């Protein structure tokens, strides 16, 4: 039975494109044009993954509203925000609401598909018992790559998919400098340097929230970043 994905997007052409493309991969995709329409449908049946545009028709922040109500109903439902607005403010707001990732609308279909399948994989992994051998441990850092879970000193760090991939890339080879291009490639995003910088900044903040003494991510100016092993 194919997995069900809901796309809430007010722009019919984009919606149609995504519905068709994801359907081609083998998902069962439904598209909704507005928040009320989507909520009505979700009341009937919850999809397994939701892709939401932040601005929905005449509700500029309708996506956030929808995300909030979905999160109330299902804490584990993977939610991906998709928007034309790629400013940091939107990112932070979206993540505080509990979105699993956040992508600009010009993301390539390939990158979107990678995230969807990663999120599905994570859901599957969470259902299975923990396989300790798939985890990487470095000091206080513990990475469970299957579950896409990272913990620091025993505490979960709430990272998005993109952020997880970045930390994973850095932490796998401590001491190696990873350029921004490498990080982008591994995190399956195409963004500019400034956005990478703000990603790193956010990752640091999330670690610091757990451990104020955290300084494992090192900036190598002009080159990139490195995980201090």
């Amino acid at each position: 039975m194919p997995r069900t994905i809901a796309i809430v997007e007010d722009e019919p052409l984009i919606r149609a494109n995504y519905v068709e493309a994801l359907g081609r991969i083998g998902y069962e995709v439904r598209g909704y044009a507005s928040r009320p329409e989507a909520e009505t449908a979700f009341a009937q049946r919850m999809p397994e993954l939701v892709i939401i545009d932040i601005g929905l028709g005449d509700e500029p922040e309708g996506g956030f509203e929808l995300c909030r109500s979905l999160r109330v109903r299902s804490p584990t439902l993977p939610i991906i925000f998709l928007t034309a607005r790629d400013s940091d403010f939107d990112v932070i707001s979206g993540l505080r609401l509990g979105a699993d990732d956040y992508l600009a609308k010009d993301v390539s279909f390939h990158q979107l598909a990678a995230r969807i399948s990663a999120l599905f994989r994570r859901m599957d992994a969470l259902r299975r018992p923990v396989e300790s051998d798939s985890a990487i441990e470095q000091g206080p850092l513990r990475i469970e790559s299957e579950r896409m879970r990272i913990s620091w000193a025993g505490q979960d760090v709430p990272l998005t998919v993109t952020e997880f991939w970045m930390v994973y890339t850095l932490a796998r080879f401590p001491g190696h400098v990873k350029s921004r291009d490498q990080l982008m490639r591994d995190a399956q995003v195409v963004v500019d340097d400034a956005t990478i910088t703000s990603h790193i900044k956010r990752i640091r903040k999330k670690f610091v929230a757990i451990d104020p003494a955290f300084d494992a991510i090192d900036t190598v100016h002009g080159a990139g970043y490195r995980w201090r092993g």
Partner: protein
Amino acid sequence: MSLRLKLLIVALSTLVLPWMGWQLVRQTESLLRQGQEQALQASAEAIVKAIDALGVAAPVEGPVFPVFAASAPILVDGYTDDWSAWAADLQPIGPGEQARARVALAEDRAWLYVLLDVRDGTRSRVDARDRRVWTSDHVLLELERGGERSRYPLASAAPGEFDAPADPPLRELPERIVGQWQEDGSSYRIEFRLPRAVLPDRLAFSLYDAAEPVRADPPLRRLLRYDEDAARALARLAPERMRARLATPEGWLVADSGGLGAEADEAEPDEEGWFGGLIYRGMIAPALTGTRALDGVSARLAGAEVAAAATGRPLLSWRPGERPGEVVLAAAVPRRAGGRVTGVLLLEQASRALPLLANRALTELAVASAIALAVAAGVLVSFGALLSFRIRRLRNAAEQAVGSGGRWTGPLPLADAGDELGDLARSFGKLLHEVDAYTGYLRTLASKLSHELNTPLAIVKSSLDNLDQQPLGDGARAYLARARDGAERLGTIVRAMSESHRIERAIASADAEDFDLAALVAGCAEGYRALAGTRAIRLRLPDGPVPFHGAPELIAQALDKLFDNARSFTPEGGWIELRLARERDGVVLTVANSGPLLPAALQDRLFDTLVSVRERSARGSGEAPHLGLGLYVVRLVADLHRGRAVAHDRAERDGVEFVLHLVGMPRRRLADVH
């Protein structure tokens, strides 16, 4: 020309005040003078009439020889020592050649002395009694007494005594004249005396020079003596402190009386001081055109005044007095008898009152108008200074507002002033407001546009992604690839357009930290080496770490922009230099590169938003577009670190320099952190 200078020039127009005052003083003074002149002329004419009424004899008419009164005995020796008092008053005996011989006459109680001085370089000497005397050098003396005439050839064969016989001898006249003859290389002198008992009525001299044998026949002249009666009469008639002199029409003094005493009540001659004296000399003295020759005592009154009076026309003149600060008014009036001018009365009055009066008024006026001028100029200049200060304040505020990229930082100064400057400030404010709105619109246009473009771009991209999955021919795949390439490029452009917006947000949320700026620059330079290609990267750092408080990410980003900019302008094989130096209150970060110089027109605006100096041809097909945001980002970063960014050509003119002066972000107080 600055406003202050202009106002100063305007203030100079108040100089017209003292000028007007000066004119007034001059007019007053000239009126006073006229009054004085009229009074003096009137009294001169009254004196003349009184003299006539008193029956003072008119001086002899016709040609005369003046006779001086000898106060000391005169020795007849042929030398002029005794005559030195009258040396200037020797009279030519006649016109033309005859003027070579000059004569002076003097008398005491018993004798009439005669001195003849003849300039003659060629001498032919014979004695007076020699028969050849008529064809040799001699002076012929002709005497007339009681209608009879006799001639005496005055000649001598040698210096010394001579003896001239009368021709013809007459009873009334001496039968011979004995005198002294002396000579030197160019002249000879004849001196003799006649007893007053046989004084001639008239006499004449004529010179005969053997070298130029022309015999002259001069008219006989009367003797003119100083008239004591007339002098006494004058003394009675002349007012006090005036000098009256009576002369013949030729100017020979007949009688005089009085003197030029200063007015008694003007006892303080130095009162006017140097200032008054200066004004007197500079302004009043030029009007003094009288003849100084009338000063002092002389036997003959030479001067235009006497000459004019001799023709029957009274003349007045002013001349400086003998004492400083004194002027003398002279009035010459003719004395008439039967339609002929028989003499001239010269009446003179010295006065200090007039110049002093003028000076005092002038001084007071000068001081008053100097004060008025200073006050007026001071008021005008301070008004001008205030005005230009206000204008400058407005200008500076306007320039600052424009200089900060049209960002309006608050109300302009003077905006609530009620005058025209207030109007100007308000219009400036309006203008700046519009400029601000406009630049604000421009600044956000790119990011707004990029937001708007994102959705259609997403449609295109997702459509292309879908198309990729469709069965397509090879030709169609090629077009698909091109369309994808175009969409990618469009995506890059859209991202670049929103960059400054993102940077502004990043700056707004930037957190300051302490770090080593030298390490940052070194790290960046390492990273740039890979990108520089054939261009050499030079790095110059100060010794030791450079601790800095700021946002390292943003500084690195600014450095990236500068490097990016430098790289695109540096020719292959050129160099790029990164230089860090400590400054008094911060650091200087310089990115210099070889390459073309900056266009002069844009030097000040390089760091503004949406300004790009790149030519279109400089852009490769694959390069990101230049929207003029890169250096704007640099400026934002510099602003954040309380610094500034400047760009200029290198002193060597082989490239350009972009210089960041950074001070550091302000340290937050602990209270702000929490």
